[in-house]
């Protein structure tokens, strides 16, 4: 007997276990909405933003340091006020969020691909391959992610000239964050792959003569994706925070390009002179973004990773 099927995909999703957990937790729903809204706004930044912070023609120094529109002296054209260069803060935050989300998403994707590949190798083949990969993972995991990222930034800086480094800054950060995250993915994938390896369906595949690569890709991979998704979500928050921290320290994205970290860095220079909006709104954006990612990560863990419940 077929269970009753809801008419369309969205209804089916809402009806599932994950959908039920999502619906029944108002905090998760709000976090999901905030996340979708912020990602959407960030992706559509060139369309939504009233000004283009990269367009030098639209920037007027006369407009610098205007307070938010609802304060006295504010200009309705600049909703959240302007920064010291006369850039519209709302627009720079939109573009900044875009940079931050881009860096976070790309570095986590790279880390997941690398972690999946090496983790599957280690878990499936075991022996020497496993020993070598896991020793590297162990060694790297003794250092916190942000430390690894700082060190990689420092090393690349000592080999590149300043201009070269500024040009490549985004890639250096992505590389640094990806390198600091992959060991976690690899460790989890290896653990699940070792369990799956001894299951009947894998043995059946081996018996009918499928090669190890096909087995890993077609049979084991789909079964280890759950925990990987959870780790990826949580580390998206870590990567976004990492980029912001590096940029805040003046070691990440160069100051001319908006990212949430560089915006907060600029705002921090005005902390004693009263132009608080330049600090508070980028900071709140960052906090809200990471908080919603973390809450969604908690929900995913609940749904996909029954062990840690």
């Amino acid at each position: 007997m077929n269970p009753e099927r809801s008419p369309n995909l969205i209804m089916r999703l809402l009806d599932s276990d994950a959908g039920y957990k999502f619906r029944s937790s108002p905090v998760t729903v709000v976090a999901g909405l905030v996340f979708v809204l912020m990602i959407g706004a960030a992706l559509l930044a060139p369309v939504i933003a009233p000004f283009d912070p990269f367009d030098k023609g639209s920037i007027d120094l006369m407009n610098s340091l205007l307070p938010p529109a609802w304060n006295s002296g504010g200009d309705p054209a600049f909703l959240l006020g302007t920064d010291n260069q006369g850039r519209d803060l709302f627009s720079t935050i939109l573009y900044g969020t875009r940079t931050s989300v881009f860096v976070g998403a790309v570095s986590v994707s790279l880390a997941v691909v690398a972690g999946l590949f090496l983790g599957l190798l280690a878990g499936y083949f075991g022996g020497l391959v496993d020993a070598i990969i896991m020793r590297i993972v162990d060694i790297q995991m003794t250092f916190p992610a942000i430390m690894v990222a700082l060190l990689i930034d420092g090393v690349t800086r000592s080999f590149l000239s300043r201009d070269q480094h500024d040009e490549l800054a985004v890639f250096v950060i992505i590389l640094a964050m990806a390198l600091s995250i992959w060991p976690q993915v690899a460790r989890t994938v290896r653990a699940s792959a070792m369990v799956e390896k001894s299951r009947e369906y894998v043995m059946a595949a081996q018996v009918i003569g499928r090669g190890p690569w096909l087995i890993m890709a077609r049979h084991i991979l789909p079964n280890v994706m759950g925990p990987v998704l959870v780790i990826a979500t949580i580390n998206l928050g870590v990567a976004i925070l990492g980029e912001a921290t590096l940029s805040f320290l003046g070691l990440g994205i160069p100051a001319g390009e908006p990212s949430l970290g560089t915006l907060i860095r600029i705002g921090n220079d005005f902390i004693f002179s009263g132009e608080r909006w330049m600090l508070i709104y980028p900071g709140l954006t960052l906090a809200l973004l990471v908080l919603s990612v973390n809450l969604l990560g908690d929900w995913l863990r609940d749904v996909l990773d029954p062990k840690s419940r």
Partner: protein
Amino acid sequence: MIRFLIERLFQAAVVLIVVALLAFVMFRFAGDPVAQMVSLDTTAEDRAALREAMGLNNSLPVQFGQFVLRAVQGDFGLSYQMGQPVATLLAERLPASIELSLVAFGIALIVGIPMGVYSGLYPESWLSRAFLILSLAGISLPTFFIGIMLILIFGVELNLFPTFGRGETVDLGWWTTGLLTGSGWHSIILPACTLGLFQMTFIMRLVRAEILDVMRTDYIKFARARGIAKGRINYGHALKNTLVPVLTIAGLQLGSIIAFGIVTESVFQWPGIGLLFIQAISTVDIPVMSTYLLLVALIFVSINLIVDLLYLLVDPRLRVRSR
């Protein structure tokens, strides 16, 4: 057990050698060490002589050996920026960082454990929920932003605490401490709270989870059935058994205190080794960078070794298995 120990020591040695190799490669190949030490009017012969004297003409493995030998003796070369021996610079600044880390860790333990115990014992109370929300904020808010907000609220608006520096320090000869003066304590509060907040939320969540687990075990049920007073069950039996994993994991977290110490020191202009490192990165002061790299690797490896040994002492199952 011996095998476990040797394995760990071997792993620690490998980490240190890899990091030393990285530091050496940076030191040797990023920029010319001779060009950094001489002035413009040094003759080519003098340069060549210096090159020979520094051993830069030897084969690379020999040079690496000499680098390690010098490092073991505490000779890390001169800072490009400040012209002083790197070892002196680090020794001057190390006390500031250690004091900040310890005070932050102390705050995290003193505040985090009671919060965790309370919210573990009474998970349904509104105060526990408030603690949980607070801890989520502590995890989601970046360290540097927390620091800036504390500066803004307590330093600028309320004008209660200094916003940068260490205050007055007392020189004990081999150690300069800010913990003997009023202004030193006054200055350490904000940075220590900033640095301690993440640890505090971490410890709180950990203690809470452990207590929730322990309260479900049979021996607690049995203690209840015997009619032992609630206070003794909670603190004598439950808390005592949660503290072992909490302390070891918290010890491991000392590493992240060092990492986030860099950020905190930078926000509060705290004159520790983290600030020195940040300045070294932005001015590409390679000897300082490579030395810091070595120092941090040494600290991390030691912490991990100690924690592994603690596990051995604490968990008898490990001793049996590895025999």
